[in-house]
Structures are given as C-alpha cells and as structure tokens.
C-alpha cells in the first residue's frame, strides 16, 4: 500500500460510488497499482495453507494466521486474526499484509472486498475435498511466497507419497464399513455425503456407512444399528470432548453397532484428518491401515 494522489475527477466520484459501491474508488485504485510478486508480509487463513508455508520454509513471511492454523506448533504463536468466517477488515489490515491466502470458506465477502480495495492480494482456494485441492494449495502458497521452485519440489514429493498410498489402498482385499463421528461440541453427529470426512473415507478404501443424507446429522441408536459400521472414526479432540475413549463407548447409540464388540475406533488429530493439506497422504494411509486392522 503506497501513498498516491487521487485526481479531482476521481474525487468527484466519491459520493455516487459510495452510495452504489463499497469504497472510495480513487483510493482503491491508487493503492492496488503498487502490488508486486512475492509477498513480504503474508496472512494465512487456513490450517492447510499454513502448513504449506512452513514446508516451503517461508514462515518468516507469516505475520498472522486464523484459529484453525494449529500445526506446526510454531503457527500457534503467530498473531491470530480470529475465526475464518468472521474476519475483521481493520484487524487484518493492522498486520499490514501484502497478500492473504485462504480457502473459499473465508468471509464475510464484504470484508474480503475491503481488504482487496486496500491493495492486498487475496488468493482463495476452492474447498473441494479432493487431491487437486491439496495440489492447488501448494501452488498458491508457492506463488504468493515467491518460492515456485520449492513448491514444485514439494509437489513432486507429495505426488510420490500419494501414488504409493493409492497403490497400497488399491491392493486391499476388503473395504471396511466405517462411520465418522464429529463430536467437538454438544451432541455427536455423523458425516454423510458431501463432507470432508466422506471424501477421506473413500480415499482410504473404506465405505461410508451413511449414504442416505448430505452433511452432518445427529444419529439415533436405531439408525446407527441399521447403518452397521464395523469401525468408528473420530478425531482425538472429539474423543477428548466426550471424556475419553471409555466414556465414548458408553454412549447408548453405539451399543448396537458391529464396531462396539471390538471397540473398533480409529482416531486422528482433527487438522491432520480433515485439513486437506500436505499431510493428506499420511492421514489416508493411517486411516486405511488402522481400519483394515480392525476388520482383519
């Protein structure tokens, strides 16, 4: 954001444009002209993107992150701009970033517009819950940090990991029937179609026991029994929130499931499991192997 002059004519547009639009037009144009490639000050609004920043060794550019940027641990010490769907324009700009990287979950849209008008580049990666999303995240971070070569290297590494994990999954004789339980807050909910968890379950060579609905829904004991999962997946945070593994299995909804007999539970840390970042291959591999062990 550099200092510039706006002309008389641009100034005249102020009132008309400010009633119709969102900003003083002259100010916005003046500021965005000075953007240069390779950010000096970067704000990341997604845990997965933050991980990539650290993998590309660009953490010295990072001046702020959102509340989901929990890994690596050093990311927790950066300035926190709050919850990704409820950003504060002035708060974000107070970190004086020249680029912001985020997923399409970031908002509200008016705040993103205001940040763009202040001359900050905003790059959004669409949340599609697939491998291409991970690749795009690496590319976007490489571009925004000016570390394209390192990003290509990382991409090649991740690609190799991913194909070996996929080959391993393809060799499996059996597809365990699994159920993902989300229990961070309040009553536990189970993941249906169209969720990050569902995509992960399929990548890991498992079958989602829930195929009747989209999104997360509370599940009753009877419906749980008819879904008949062989293995339950949860996050470590979710199990903690319910008071530990022993308390989890005491829940009445679980008693009638095949998983209950063996207490077949697979847990992974939440940002690892659902982050769709560079740790996706290891998450898929861990899920695949541990689910198979339970049904062996």
């Amino acid at each position, binding site marked *: 954001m550099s200092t510039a002059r706006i002309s008389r004519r641009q100034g005249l547009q102020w009132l008309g444009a400010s009633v119709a639009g969102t900003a003083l037009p002259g100010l916005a144009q003046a500021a965005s002209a000075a953007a240069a490639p390779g950010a000096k000050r970067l704000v990341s609004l997604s845990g997965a993107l933050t991980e990539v920043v650290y993998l590309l060794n660009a953490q010295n550019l990072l001046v702020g992150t959102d*509340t989901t940027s929990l890994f690596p641990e050093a990311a927790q010490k950066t300035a926190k701009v709050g919850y990704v769907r409820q950003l*504060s324009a002035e708060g974000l700009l107070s970190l004086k970033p020249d680029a912001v990287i985020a997923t399409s979950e970031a908002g509200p849209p008016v705040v993103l517009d205001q940040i763009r008008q202040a001359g900050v580049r905003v790059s959004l990666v669409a949340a599609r819950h697939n491998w291409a999303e991970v690749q795009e995240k690496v590319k976007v971070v490489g571009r925004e940090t000016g570390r394209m070569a390192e990003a290509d290297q990382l991409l090649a590494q991740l690609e190799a990991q991913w194909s070996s994990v996929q080959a391993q999954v393809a060799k499996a004789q059996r597809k365990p029937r699994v159920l993902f339980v989300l229990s961070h807050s309040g009553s536990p909910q189970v993941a249906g179609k169209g969720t990050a968890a569902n995509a992960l379950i399929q990548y890991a060579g498992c079958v989602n026991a829930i195929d009747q609905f989209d999104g997360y829904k509370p599940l009753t004991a009877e419906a749980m029994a008819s879904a008949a999962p062989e293995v339950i997946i949860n996050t470590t945070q979710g199990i903690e929130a319910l008071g530990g593994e022993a308390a989890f299995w005491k829940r009445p909804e679980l008693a009638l499931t095949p998983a209950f007999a063996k207490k077949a539970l697979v847990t992974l840390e939440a940002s690892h499991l659902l982050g769709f970042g560079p740790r996706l291959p290891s998450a898929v591999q861990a899920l695949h192997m541990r689910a198979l062990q339970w049904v062996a």
Partner: protein
Amino acid sequence: MGGLTGVMGAKPVPGASATPSRWRTPAGRLSRGATLLLGLALVLLAMVWGAASGAYAIAPAQLPGIAWDGIRSLWGGDVQTGPEHLVFLNIRLPRLLMGVAAGAGLGLAGALMQGLFRNPLADPGLIGVSSGAALAAGITIVLGGMYLPWLPRHLGSWALVAMAFGGGLAVTAVVYVLGQVQGTTRIGLMLLAGIAINALAGAGLGFLSFVSTDEQLRNLQMWLLGSLGASRWSAVALVWAAVAVSAAAALALARPLNAIALGEAQANLLGVAVEKTKRRAVMVAALAVGAVTATTGIIGFIGLVAPHWVRLIAGPDHRVVLPGSALLGAALVVSADAVARTIVKPAELPLGVLTAFIGVPLFLAMLRQFRSKV
C-alpha cells in the same frame, strides 16, 4: 401539575413546585433540553472514542486531517491518500456511522414498542420483526444456494440483506393482522400473536440449523450474534435513510403516545387518532429495526434498555423518551463496537455479545440507584 396538561405538552407553570430550572423539572428529573443535550454529548463522545480506537494504529492527531481529506474529496478536492486514509475512510468511518444509525433505530423502536404496549418489558422483537428477519436470513443462508440460486445473481451480496428486510416486514405484517379485531388493533392480542409467531420462527430456525451444512450453520450463528463488520458506505446510506424517516415519523407520534399512556379510552376522548397511532408505531418500528437487523444481524438488548434509562433520568414523556432513546442507543452501540473491534485484536468479538456484556451491568447498577423510581 394537572396530569392532562403535562401529558399534552403544555409548559409547566413556573414556581408551581420546588426550584424548577432549565435543567430540572419540578419532579427533580432532568428537563427535556438537558436530557437531549446529555444524549448528544454521549453520542459525540462515543464517536470520538470509536474513531480513535481500532486494530490499525492511526495516531489520533492524524484523524482530523484524514476526516477533512475525506470531506474535501466529496467536492473533488485533490487528496493525499495512504493506508491510514483507506482504513479510516473505507472501514472505520462507515462502521462508526452504521453504529450510530443502528443504535438510534433500535433505541427508537424500543421506545415506540414500550409506549405502544404500555409495558416496560416490550422490545422491538415482540412484533416479530427481528425473528422474521432472522428466519429469512436463515432461509437465504441454508436453502438459498439450492432453491434461490438466481437471487445472488441479481442482488449479489445484497441478497441476504434484502431477504432479511423483507422477512422482517412480512412477519410484522402477519402479527399486526392477527392483532386486528373488527378493524381495531387489540394490543393484548397482538402481543400474544407476536409471542406465538416468534416461537414459530424459532422453530423454523431450529429446523434450518438441522438441515444446514457445517459451514451454513456457522454462518447462521454468526449472523444471529450481530456485527457491524460488513458496513460499507452503500449500506450505511440505506440504513441512515431508513432510520431518519423512522425518527421523523416517530417524533410525530410522541404526543399521541403520551395520550395512549393514559389508556385508549382517554386518548380517544382527547381527540387522538388511536388506531392510526398504533398502526404507525408498528410500521415505524418495523422499518427501523428491519433495516438495521437486515444489515447487521441481531443486536439484542439496546431496544429494551435505552428507553428505560431515559425514563429513569427524564420521566415518561415520549417527547423526551423517543429522541433520548435514539441518542442513548447510538452511544451504546458505538461504544460496544469500539470494544468489540479492539478487545481481541486483530480478531473481533461479535457485537451482540458485547451489547449485553456492557449494557446489562450498567443497567443493573442504574436500577439499584433508582430503586424508588422504577
């Protein structure tokens, strides 16, 4: 003091009671002029505080210059611009002015509703405008993508605002019609209808949160907590226009509401058009609260508390309660937002949380101090 002359606005007789002055009424309360001056001073103080505080560091000494540059650019002046100008003129200032309009609209509507229902517990939510706006916002957030995909194409980010505003007015109209008996508005009936419709809207919101995805649910929750974060100049202009029209219309209702305070039969005898007053009060409150809520989400508590506060210091005359509540509401919202923007910077707290956190303790302290007068 004869009750009727006082209510209808005649000047108090000089010397009729102990030491009345320009600032004190004979009952020992603040006079109208003193109350409104005090309110105006509070709004200005809150605005100065709000202008000077924010996550982005701008030296207070720079602010008058930046503000002057903004004003000059309106008339095509050649203006120096920099990041401070952008942050102040495009983000902080519209937000500040939105806070003034939102607080004024909510305070005004609260005073109107307490006057109309003749009940100190009334708040603008009773006529269904907030819950209607919330329900329509919920429908837009949760079902909009699937059933109304054309809506954002035509209205962009205004889709949610337009739907919420329309929903607030529509639900208010339903409550109003349900309160009608043979062409007259039964206030008690309207109150019950409002409670019932609010419960229905609550159930609708519950259903929406059940069918929503994780992301939609969070968006809906954030909307329900209220925030001035999305204040752009265009929205500020619209809300100011709605609140200004409401304020002008509300002030014209002050004397009729004073008469209705004595009872509808008495008001009729005094020549007040009672039905027209009731209808207008509902319309004006719905317009003000609908416009504010549609752009900011639910900001609770202001409409309930601001009128009480004014009555405690200045008495129940609507000619002071209505404008006083607007001023006090504006000061409260602007101050609460200043805290919301800075207390967890660079993040921010939802405003609806803070209006209650700041207002309730102050209000309870006030209640204790004025126990005898409540």
